[in-house]
């Protein structure tokens, strides 16, 4: 990749002087510093999740050149920091254009964690268990990976209307991320938090040739994306299995190739456009079938695979056709059809041994056929009525619970723009999904565990009635002032579900106001409110007694239904202001407050004996508040020089029953202790940030 990039750079460096004769260049260079105080935070990874907020130097440059024939832009920021970004692009109008870039990001997960393991984040993580005294553990400085995306494109336009384009980029991701694993095969055997090694490289190349005129677009492209993982697996000590070395497997090397073509015909009869697109892709990943695993007592036991290699191969073929037309005055029409076919040709694998009999994989394929029509009729200049229907048929192979589903979606919509200052839209959408459930006759009777399958419906495919109403208003009562409102109510009712998710509801309202007269104060302010609920029903019970697996059977002390209602409430408000305080002074400020409030109500089926301990509802479930304030002043010393000074404050509070009273160990009998590393134990932070920059413009 570096050779390709260098070749492009050198080619362009040579080309610049030749076309720079009529170029006007302008831009700016900024240098400054930032000081961050987050000392109170035990784990400041959340503050730094995607930002490099280390105290230190901050830089930025922005160069632009324009000529009658040629142009270039160069921009860079945060040089030398974890979130560095730099790009240069340019070209000769109607001849060629190019872009080179590098964009880095550090994703921080955990600061100041601890682990009983040596070699955390490496391919070999060892410890001797039991090790419940955390004073003997090792510190983890940070769990984070750095992602760097570097690449560019070159497009030849001189043969207009033909063009040729080549895109290439390389994404390297290195560092670590958090994860965990069970120790034995039952949750009663405990689990361990692990630091997964991350060392990925993805190389993408796209070649495209096309023809573009005002009435005809055509393009053919070929893409290849190769993913390489230097740690397809890693080893760690498993205390439950007598301190033997266990193995966790990560995503393996894979190769994705795609051929895509599209054609668009404009200016067809009845003012119509026909757009066609076809893709065919293939994904491959070959991995060895592992013949043994660490097992009880630390022994290495055979797994009995039916071969030596898993040849993973999935092919997708898609076809899309869309016809957009205005057959009569004031009527817009769109008719479309889509086909998506996924064929999983991967090896059928069976693991069959004394420790685990007959574990098979289920290659997953589907065939989706979709068509629809949308119309919009302009009753007059200020009133538009729209309606549409979408039909989706899906056939699946490789799922044990559902094969075929049919989705029918209708919508009607009304938009009013009779007043120049007001635009209002109301849209109602209904989705009806019918599903072919395959387990409706499972089990021989209500005492057979398989009988329960009759009532279990995975919400992603179960039959559902969905209703959604959305209202939007945009109002400009006076020039430069825009008021906006968006409100949505949505309900999914899983009509055939007895167990699993029964219903979910969503209510949202967002309001905003923006004012921006040229040369004066500008502001944007918003307030949001969301409420989401999920209702579900479940059943506890084991054994073979009649009724055990029938959710309609009367409850007993050991067999009964329970229900959960998950609630998420989110509120947010914020404001941003730009104030030209003086001729040479501009002040920009923004403040935002976000609050998330989650809870779960748990209840037992009516009639459950009083001897059964009632579940305790969860009051704190991802409850958080984040307050952010940012103020900066930009003072122009003269036409060339300006100074920027800024201050930012952020505070994040988090409360959750899953983490309350966090401890690094969960002691248990028979070596089934669990060991944690502190991920999300202390995500709260408070930070004060000051920064200053000097900018030279030319």
């Amino acid at each position, binding site marked *: 990749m570096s050779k390709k990039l260098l070749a492009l750079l050198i080619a362009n460096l040579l080309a610049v002087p030749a076309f720079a004769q009529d170029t006007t260049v302008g831009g700016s260079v900024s240098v400054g510093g930032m000081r961050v105080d987050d000392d109170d935070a035990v784990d400041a990874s959340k503050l730094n999740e995607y930002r490099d907020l280390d105290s230190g130097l901050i830089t930025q440059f922005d160069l632009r050149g324009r000529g009658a024939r040629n142009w270039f832009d160069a921009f*860079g920021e945060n040089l030398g920091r974890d979130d560095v970004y730099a790009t240069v692009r340019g070209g000769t109008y109607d001849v060629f254009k190019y872009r080179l870039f590098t964009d880095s990001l550090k994703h921080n997960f955990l600061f100041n964690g601890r682990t009983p393991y040596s070699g955390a984040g490496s391919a070999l993580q060892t410890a001797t268990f039991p090790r419940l005294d955390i004073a003997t553990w090792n510190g983890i400085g940070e769990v984070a990976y750095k992602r760097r995306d570097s690449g560019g494109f070159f497009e030849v336009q001189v043969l207009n209307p033909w063009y040729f384009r080549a895109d290439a980029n390389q994404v390297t991701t290195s560092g670590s991320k958090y994860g965990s694993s069970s120790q034995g095969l039952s949750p009663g055997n405990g689990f361990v938090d692990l630091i997964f090694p991350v060392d990925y490289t993805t190389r993408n190349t796209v070649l495209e040739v096309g023809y573009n005129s005002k009435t005809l677009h055509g393009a053919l492209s070929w893409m290849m994306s190769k993913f390489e993982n230097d740690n397809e697996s890693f080893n760690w000590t498993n205390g439950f299995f007598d301190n033997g070395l266990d193995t966790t497997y990560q995503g393996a090397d894979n190769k994705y190739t795609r051929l895509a073509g599209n054609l668009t015909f404009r200016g067809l009869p009845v003012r119509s456009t026909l*757009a066609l697109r076809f893709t065919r892709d293939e994904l491959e990943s070959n991995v060895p079938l592992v013949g043994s695993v660490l097992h009880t007592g630390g022994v290495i036991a055979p797994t009995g695979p039916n071969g030596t290699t898993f040849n993973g191969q999935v092919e997708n073929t898609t076809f899309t056709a869309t016809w957009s037309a205005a057959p009569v005055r004031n009527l817009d029409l769109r008719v479309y059809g889509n086909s998506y076919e996924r064929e999983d040709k991967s090896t059928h694998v069976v693991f069959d041994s004394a420790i685990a009999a007959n574990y098979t994989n289920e290659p997953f394929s589907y065939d989706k056929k979709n068509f629809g029509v949308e119309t919009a009729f302009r009753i007059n200049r200020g009133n538009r009525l729209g309606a549409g229907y979408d039909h989706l048929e899906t056939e699946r192979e490789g799922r044990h619970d559902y094969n075929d589903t049919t989705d029918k979606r209708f919508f009607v919509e009304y938009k009013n723009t009779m007043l120049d200052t007001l635009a209002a839209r109301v849209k109602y959408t209904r989705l009806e999904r019918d599903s072919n459930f395959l387990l409706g006759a499972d089990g021989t009777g209500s005492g057979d565990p398989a009988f329960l399958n009759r009532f279990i419906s995975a919400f992603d*495919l179960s039959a559902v009635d969905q209703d959604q109403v959305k209202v939007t208003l945009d109002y400009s009562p006076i020039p430069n002032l825009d008021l906006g409102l968006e409100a949505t109510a949505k309900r999914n009712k899983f009509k055939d579900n007895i167990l699993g998710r029964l219903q979910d509801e969503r209510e949202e309202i967002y309001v905003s106001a923006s004012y921006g007269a040229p040369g004066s104060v500008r502001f944007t302010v918003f307030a949001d409110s969301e409420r989401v609920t999920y209702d579900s029903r479940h059943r506890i019970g084991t054994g073979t007694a009649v009724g055990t697996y029938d959710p309609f059977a009367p409850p007993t002390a050991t067999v009964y239904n329970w229900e959960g209602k998950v609630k998420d409430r989110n509120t947010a408000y914020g404001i941003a202001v730009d104030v030209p305080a003086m001729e040479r002074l501009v002040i920009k400020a923004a403040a935002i407050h976000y609050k998330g409030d989650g809870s779960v109500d748990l209840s037992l089926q009516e009639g459950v004996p009083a001897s059964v301990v009632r579940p305790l509802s969860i009051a704190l479930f991802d409850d958080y508040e984040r307050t952010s304030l940012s103020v900066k002043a930009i003072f122009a010393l003269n036409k060339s020089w300006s100074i920027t000074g800024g201050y930012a404050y952020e505070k994040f509070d988090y409360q959750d029953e899953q983490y309350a009273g966090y401890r690094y160990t969960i002691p248990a009998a028979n070596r089934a202790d669990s060991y944690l590393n502190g991920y999300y134990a202390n995500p709260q932070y408070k930070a004060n940030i000051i920064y200053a920059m000097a900018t030279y413009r030319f």
Partner: protein
Amino acid sequence: MRIKLLLAAAIALPLMALPALAQPAIPVCATCHESAQASIAFTHHGAKNDADGSMCQACHGDASAHLKDPAGTKPANPMKQGAPAAEKDAVCMTCHAGNRHLSFWESGKHARNDVSCTSCHSIHDASKNLSVAALTTSARPIEADTCGTCHKQVRNATNKQSHHPIIEGKVKCSDCHNPHGAASPAMVKHETVNQQCFSCHADKRGPFIFGHPPVEENCLSCHTPHGSAHGKLLNEKVPNLCQDCHVTGRHPTAFYGAGQGWNRPDGTPNPGVSSRFVARGCLNCHNSIHGSNAPSNRGKYLIR
């Protein structure tokens, strides 16, 4: 090393052009509309302009009569405020119809919902939208500030505690969506949601020996793309999300409530802490939820 070379080249490339400066033609329109000319001077529109203001007239209409009688005659100006979106777009398409990104413009939702080019592109004022967000270390315009003026639900989501780095300027709306039109649902760039997600998350692509069919069909069964109150952009918190499907046998059927954390609700230590409830719930053990290449039951149950 590669980055340093790139940076050096990125800086050197434009600097080499510095010695050869020349003033471009000033369009006659700038005599009165000075600020309008200044605002496009460093854009492609400005660079292609000439003394007659051909680029000005390309958008605002024939100005020959206006030049003779500036006060009495105005150009037709199809870009004027309040003009129908289709009329504005037709002006832009006069030059840009051949743009490869606009192949599916008529098929896209924006064109069909009266979203005009100028709804998003501000030709004469680059800083149209204010950013209501926490401090970002990027000075580049945040694309979501533009998209969020209409897509308010998305604007809200990007500020939730779990989000793609959109407000930080590291992921753009146009990384996943083609705002200029696409035949796909939500105008995503790839043919399906999963292919879109896998274009970055290549480690989740598989194919794995043991898959998780809902994952293989639609990432959005469990995740929401723009932001969530729950970690990992999950629609619902674990264990409840998992339990909405996994009601069958053994531990998935049990309820996990506040009495099973490290502390009891009254704050006292709980000797009966459940490893299925605390920390990441089900994911404490079933870490390979997107698929596994582990053998036997380790892979089947997505635990290694």
